[in-house]
């Protein structure tokens, strides 16, 4: 039982991080109907900005307090992400109002490659560290119940709590505020949203900024775990099966989907992996997503699309 729980908890923690990246996809898709391929690039870009500004700021203004430096770097990185949101709207999406989904997807693909390249030009292409003082030591839990207890990574625990809080706030924002309603309206129908006076451009800047914020948080958490490097952009690929599983339009779906993928890949690796000679963690998520596409194409919580003929 002990090893099982340990795997389960490890999976949940990883899953929470997948959820965080998936959340960025869902936010933008909900509010603009755009499948944002650049979400992974945004995570990398935000993490790079955070890591480098935390390095640069002390040399620029001679600040030595680590907490203050991190807070300042966070604020600057957030400003950078808002600027990215504004530029994306100005230069790309704003020109493509009312275009097909596939056109917008291609545009975000372009944005993704641009950000990958530009991010490394601007911030450098080495491996950088983000140190926000997350506790690194693992702790033991439930020692009285099991022999030896369960080993839990504190860092993962903090990350999971942050992710959960972020999700709750965003879900409430979408559901209960006027701006959230406007965001959902834009997602459903650009034309109609404009006709009732919703400013498309502003809505897009808002939602890309929020997605930038989510990317920043995800980037910091992943970055402090694994180091900030090019492969960070690739975690976004793991978020694809998550959104397929959870439904592209559902914030809770992104969370549950992330957890299922996280737990699924860890448990499968441990329990059915040996039958395949191991290494199934890498592709398990995609196979699961494939099965879901066959059975429930709209995902667990996605809006079921009923076409009237």
């Amino acid at each position, binding site marked *: 039982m002990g090893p099982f729980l340990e795997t389960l908890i490890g999976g949940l923690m990883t899953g929470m991080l997948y959820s965080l990246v998936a959340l960025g996809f869902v936010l933008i898709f909900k509010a603009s109907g755009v499948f944002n391929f650049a979400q992974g690039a945004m995570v990398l870009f935000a993490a790079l900005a955070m890591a480098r500004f935390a390095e640069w700021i002390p040399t620029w203004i001679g600040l030595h307090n680590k907490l203050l430096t991190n807070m300042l770097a966070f604020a600057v990185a957030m400003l950078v992400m808002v600027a990215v949101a504004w530029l994306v709207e100005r230069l790309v999406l704003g020109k493509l109002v009312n275009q097909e989904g596939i056109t917008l997807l291609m545009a975000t693909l372009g944005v993704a490659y641009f950000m990958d390249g530009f991010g490394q030009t601007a911030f450098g292409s080495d491996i950088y560290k983000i140190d926000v003082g997350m506790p690194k030591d693992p702790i033991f839990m439930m020692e009285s119940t099991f022999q030896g207890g369960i080993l839990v990574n504190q860092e993962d625990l903090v990350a999971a709590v942050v992710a959960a809080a972020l999700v709750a706030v965003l879900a409430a924002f979408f559901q209960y505020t*006027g701006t959230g309603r406007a965001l959902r*309206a834009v997602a459903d*129908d650009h034309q*109609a*949203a404009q006709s*009732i006076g919703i400013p498309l451009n502003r809505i897009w800047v808002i939602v890309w900024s929020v997605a930038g914020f989510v990317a920043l948080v995800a980037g910091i958490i992943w970055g402090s775990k694994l180091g900030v490097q090019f492969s960070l952009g690739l975690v976004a690929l793991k978020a694809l099966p998550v959104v397929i599983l959870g439904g592209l*339009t559902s914030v809770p779906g992104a969370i549950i989907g992330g957890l299922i993928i996280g737990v699924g890949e860890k448990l499968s690796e441990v329990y059915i992996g040996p039958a395949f000679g191991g290494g199934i963690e890498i592709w398990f998520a995609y196979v699961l997503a494939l099965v879901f596409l066959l059975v429930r194409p709209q995902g667990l919580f996605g*809006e079921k699309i009923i076409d009237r003929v």
Partner: protein
Amino acid sequence: MNNHRSIGDVVLDVKKISLSFGGVKALTDISFDVREHEVRAIIGPNGAGKSSLLNCINGVYQPQQGTITFRGQTFQHMNSRQVAEMGVARTFQSLALFKGMNVVDNLMSGRNLKMKTNIFQQALRLPAAQREEIAHREFVERIIDFLEIQPYRKTPVGRLPYGLQKRVDLGRALAMEPQVLLLDEPMAGMNVEEKQDMCRFVLDVNDEFGTTIVLIEHDMGVVMDISDRVVVLDYGRKIGDGTPQEVRASPEVITAYLGTAH
């Protein structure tokens, strides 16, 4: 029929507008005006340019030539949002509702322009934002009562039958408290009963709120019954303009609708 409302001055004046898409001329040199509080119909065979004309007024299309004057303000390059801010609302021929949202939320989104609190006030649920939300909700509930869609207020609109969706579309436009309401075939695809209901709502809106109405409609019976004046289009040109009786008697209009005798 609509005795106790008085038709006022010209509120909307369309002057010599022409619109083409590449080599295709959708509208050629069209002029007409709409007076305050009147019900103005635009009719014509399929492809006559009715929706294009409405889209020009709504700012979706920008005509290459001509001007549109709304309450003394002339505009040429305006987008739908700016037009909405001036007090023009519209409904759509093929429904453009927010399908995943329920009826209340669809109507509430129509109040968007009236919301004064900003995103941060809303996100933090400050008292000002709360009060505003409640006030708008009251207004929306009145519209729901008016349109007799109380039982469906929490139903996602995508699940409602077509006739009711059309009503929600009208409701969302009404939530904007428009001065001019543009209706693009509000009765298309409805059965007789639904049409009667819709006619009643349109006339009530016109009567009770004094809203000026411009509508496109195919059903001649409906048009002749409810409109004060009618514009007739054919192949992007205006071929008739006047009261229903005048239009009905016009030889050009009869030709357009019935074809020429050979």
